[in-house]
C-alpha cells in the first residue's frame, strides 16, 4: 500500500500553523499536514520550503489565495508533476475532509477538498 497523501498548507504569515493546530484539535490527526509560511521568502526560498515539506511524497498543496507568491510558487512546483496537486482558498472545512481521504490520488483529493471547502461557505440566516 502506498503512503497516504501529505497535505501542505501554504500561506501568508502564520495562517498555516493556525489551521494545522485547529485540525489537530478537532480530529486528533497531527501527522497529515505540514504548514509552510512565505514569510521572508522569495520564490526560490519558498520553493525550498515546499520541497522540504513535501518530502518526495504524493501531496496536495493547500494555498491561501488564488494569486500571489504562495500560489505562483506552488503551481510552478506542481507543473508537470503527476503526484502534486494544488487547491486555493484553503479553509478549515476542506482540511478536515482531506485528512480522512488521504488514500485518493492527489488530483482527486484536491477536487474533493475544493468541493468540501466550497460547501462550507454559506450565509446562514441569523
Amino acid at each position: 500500500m502506498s503512503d497516504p497523501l501529505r497535505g501542505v498548507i501554504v500561506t501568508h504569515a502564520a495562517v498555516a500553523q493556525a489551521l494545522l493546530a485547529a485540525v489537530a484539535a478537532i480530529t486528533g490527526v497531527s501527522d497529515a499536514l505540514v504548514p509552510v509560511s512565505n514569510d521572508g521568502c522569495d520564490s526560490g526560498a519558498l520553493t525550498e520550503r515546499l520541497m522540504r515539506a513535501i518530502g518526495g511524497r504524493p501531496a496536495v498543496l493547500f494555498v491561501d489565495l488564488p494569486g500571489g507568491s504562495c500560489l505562483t510558487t506552488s503551481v510552478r512546483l506542481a507543473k508537470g508533476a503527476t503526484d502534486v496537486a494544488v487547491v486555493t482558498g484553503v479553509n478549515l472545512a476542506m482540511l478536515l475532509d482531506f485528512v480522512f481521504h488521504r488514500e485518493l490520488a492527489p488530483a482527486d483529493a484536491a477536487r474533493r477538498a475544493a468541493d468540501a471547502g466550497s460547501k462550507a461557505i454559506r450565509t446562514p440566516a441569523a
Partner: protein
Amino acid sequence: MSIALYRIDDRLIHGQVVVGWGKPLNVGFIVLVDDTVWASPWEQDLYRMGVPPEIEVVFASTAEAAARLPEWERDPRVGILLAGDIETLAALSTNSHRVSRINVGGIHHRPGRSERLRYVYLSDAEAAKLKELAAQGVAVTAQDVPTAAPVPLKEFT
C-alpha cells in the same frame, strides 16, 4: 503622472501589490517588467490569476518598457510598475530618464546578501547600485506596504 509606484519586489505580482497598494491607490493597471515572464505565456497566466479583472496587467521586457513608459505615464488610470530586481529598474531608469522615485518593496535573502530591513536583503553591489541611482537624482526609499513609513536609502544601505 499615472505611474504611482515604481516598485522592486522579487515576488512580483502578489498580495501586497494587488491589495496592499492596489486598493488605496485605486490601481487600474500593473506593468510587470520581467524578461522571463514576458517570454512565457504560462507564467503570464499564473500572475494574472492573482489580479481582479478590473485591473489590467501589462507584461513587458526591459527593452520594451523604456520605449512604452511615456505611454503608460499618459494613461488616465493609476498604474504600478513592478520589477523583480534592482538591475531591471536601474536599466529602465537609465534608458528612459523618466524614473524619479523607486520603492524597494521586497528583496529577500540569497547567498551574498545581508539583512538591511526585515524585507530587504542586499549584497554590497546591490546597495551600491541603489546609491548610484540616488546620486542620479532618483528618490529611493523602502516601504513594503503603504501604512508603513518609507525608510530613506541611507538607513538601509
